[in-house]
């Protein structure tokens, strides 16, 4: 079965190409079949490949590489188009194909009214294909191809409704900001190739371990550049600004970006290049700190948003922050675990939000919604499950297991610290609060807007499946004390370094767990209390809170800062220099020659006497030159 691996990324590409070329001539049903079908077959194939791969489990650390063709082969630089399957990429593609398929399925109904139906699916397929290429890439260059492809698709899809200027703005912002990170990644690739002589990921890791001493500056620089790339794609501080705006795209796009593709690419990259990060403690610490800072910062911003999708966007930033935190403290598999559960519940939440938005005629503002619980029971219940999972409601949700693991490991890791743990815990509190603020505003309270549409089966089915997964997803890595065997962790540890516990910290795990559970539940209760007692409004009325509110609302002023420091000066420079200062030099020359012409023309005054004068003076000059020189 493994030989079919190449079909997995190829199918979405093929689907995309086909739809792009012929899509406009096809009926909608055929487009839907093609668009969702290609990803569906992908998901099926991935399942088969996974079974076949796990069949090889007997041999420890089994990987499968498939070379399709030699891409370029020059002067010792020979990355080929080849795919690499190991435990990490297998888990990734499983989640990606499954969630993507569900989102595609959902979209077949959600987008049915759109004029550019085929374009939508073409781009969605391209998105999935790029992400799969990214994950399966055997070398950094192919990874970079997928990486950029994902960026392009995010640009295309965020700006899908390009008629609105702000959608275009959001799309551009997403593309350009991530491109900044991509450039850092490219530079990292230059360093890697220059110093290690290869771009094949496996070889790079081995070579780096052999040639770069731990903590060497070059390793640190490389790791930091990779981190910069990851930060761009995964919307972490300080490049997180594009993600909230990315909500301009259709809701399934947001789901795809947030849950299955794009933003998790950074997490994947760091996990994939763990050796480099392990060589550089500083970089790893940076990863953890960025993660911790991001999850808190984004949590605050999430708490004050009005737009339901923006809340989810900030929650994504925050949850990816958890993953970074996990990576930073060396809890590699925990990060991937959280990636998986996050994919499930975030897709669920977005799709649910999409149902709500569709039902309320495109209303995004939560304050204009309310009381939809009765009107859309299925959506409500599945959304609630997703929210619970996001808030890590203990025991029953997948999110609890993954997040709890991270919080705990942030403390007990050899690289962990109390501060990281505190940030994680505080983030957990914030998560619960903004999540349930969203739930309460949307589904409870007075009915402000009637739901006009009920989701049909293509939209409902993914909700149900994802809801189940959001609950049951935790089972794959159920820790020992809950009777599980940490299956995922074990599976991943074949390719990822194992977790190192700090001596003396690994005690009282149970107590920490209970505390974390209490915090998340407490957050829910707190927000419920605040909302019910109208304290929330009162607090937000006070001027100081208002300032804080608007500060958080605008995402901590990062946008304004970048605008002031980078965007405006660049645009202004471009505007001022539209006519190109250098050109003035040449126009100056031409003006000079015109002056010269005018001056010389004055000598041509048409008088015979001045002709003779010219001769006389000329004679004087040349006789002088000839005789006295």
């Amino acid at each position: 079965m493994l030989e079919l691996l190449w079909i997995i990324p190829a199918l979405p590409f093929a689907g995309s190409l086909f739809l792009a070329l012929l899509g406009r001539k096809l009926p909608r049903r055929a487009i839907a079949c093609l668009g969702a079908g290609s990803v569906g077959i992908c998901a099926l194939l991935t399942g088969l490949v996974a079974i076949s791969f796990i069949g090889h489990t007997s041999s420890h650390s089994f990987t499968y590489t498939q070379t399709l063709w030699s891409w370029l082969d020059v002067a010792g630089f020979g990355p080929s188009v080849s795919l690499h399957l190991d435990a990490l990429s297998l888990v990734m593609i499983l989640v990606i194909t499954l969630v993507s398929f569900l989102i595609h399925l959902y979209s077949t109904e959600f987008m049915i009214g759109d004029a550019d139906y085929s374009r939508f699916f073409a781009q969605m397929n391209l998105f999935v294909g790029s992400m799969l290429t990214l994950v399966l890439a055997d070398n950094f260059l192919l990874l970079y191809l997928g990486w950029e492809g994902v960026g392009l698709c995010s640009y295309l899809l965020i700006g899908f409704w390009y008629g609105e200027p702000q959608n275009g703005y959001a799309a551009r912002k997403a593309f350009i900001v991530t491109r900044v990170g991509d450039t850092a990644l490219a530079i990292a690739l230059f360093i890697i190739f220059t110093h290690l002589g290869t771009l094949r990921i496996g070889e790079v890791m081995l070579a780096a371990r052999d040639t770069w001493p731990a903590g060497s500056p070059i390793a640190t620089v490389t790791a930091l550049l990779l981190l910069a790339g990851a930060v761009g794609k995964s919307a972490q501080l300080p490049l997180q600004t594009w993600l909230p705006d990315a909500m301009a795209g259709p809701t399934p796009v947001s789901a795809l970006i947030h849950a299955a593709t794009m933003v998790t690419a950074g997490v994947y990259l760091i996990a994939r290049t763990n050796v480099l990060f392990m060589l550089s403690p500083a970089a790893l610490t940076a990863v953890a700190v960025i993660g911790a800072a991001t999850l808190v910062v984004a949590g605050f911003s999430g708490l004050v948003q009005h737009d339901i999708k923006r809340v989810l966007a900030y929650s994504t930033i925050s949850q990816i922050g958890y993953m970074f935190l996990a990576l930073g403290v060396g809890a590699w598999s925990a990060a991937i675990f959280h990636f998986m559960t996050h994919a499930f519940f975030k897709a669920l939440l977005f799709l649910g939000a999409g149902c709500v938005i569709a039902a309320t005629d495109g209303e995004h503002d939560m304050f204009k919604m309310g009381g939809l619980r009765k009107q859309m029971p299925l959506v409500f219940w599945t959304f609630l499950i997703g929210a619970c999972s996001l808030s890590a409601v203990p025991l029953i949700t997948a999110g609890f297991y993954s997040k709890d693991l991270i919080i705990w490991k942030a403390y007990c890791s050899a690289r962990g610290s109390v501060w990281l743990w505190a940030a994680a815990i505080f983030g957990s509190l914030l998560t619960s609060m903004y999540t349930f603020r969203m739930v309460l505003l949307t589904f409870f309270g007075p009915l402000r807007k009637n739901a006009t549409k009920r989701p049909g089966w293509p939209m409902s089915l993914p909700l149900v499946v994802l809801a189940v997964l959001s609950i049951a997803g935790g089972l794959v890595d159920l820790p020992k004390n809950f009777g599980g065997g940490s299956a995922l962790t074990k599976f991943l540890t074949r390719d990822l370094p194992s977790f190192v516990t700090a001596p003396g910290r690994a005690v009282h795990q149970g107590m920490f767990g209970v505390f974390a559970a209490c915090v998340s539940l407490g957050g829910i209760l707190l927000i419920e209390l605040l909302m019910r007692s109208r304290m929330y409004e009162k607090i937000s009325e006070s001027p100081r809170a208002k300032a804080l509110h608007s500060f958080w609302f605008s995402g901590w002023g990062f946008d304004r800062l970048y605008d002031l420091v980078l965007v405006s000066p660049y645009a202004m420079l471009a505007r001022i220099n539209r006519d190109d200062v250098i050109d003035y030099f040449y126009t100056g020359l031409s003006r000079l020659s015109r002056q010269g012409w005018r001056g010389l023309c004055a000598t041509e005054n048409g008088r015979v006497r001045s002709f003779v004068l010219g001769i006389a003076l000329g004679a004087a000059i040349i006789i002088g030159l000839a005789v006295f020189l």
Partner: protein
Amino acid sequence: MTRIVGHVLILAAVLFFLGLIGVLVRRNIVFMLLSIEIMFNAAGLAFVAAGARWAKPDGQIMFIFIVSMAAAEVSVALALVLQMHHRLKILDTDAAKSLRG
């Protein structure tokens, strides 16, 4: 170079220069032609002096030659002056400024 030849040459140069000044300051075409004649004759004088220095007849021959050529030139020039006066009604060269720019 013998002294006397040098003196004559200087005289010729002075004459030449005077002729040149004449062409430069006079606007009337007839006077300009006169001044040019002076320049030619200055050159002729120089030739004669040079011939004297080398005690050869070449200088004198050249002088005769110059005089005859100058006559030819002046005849054409005077024809032109007539045309100028006849057609353009001017003799002032500065007034002939239809060609310029």
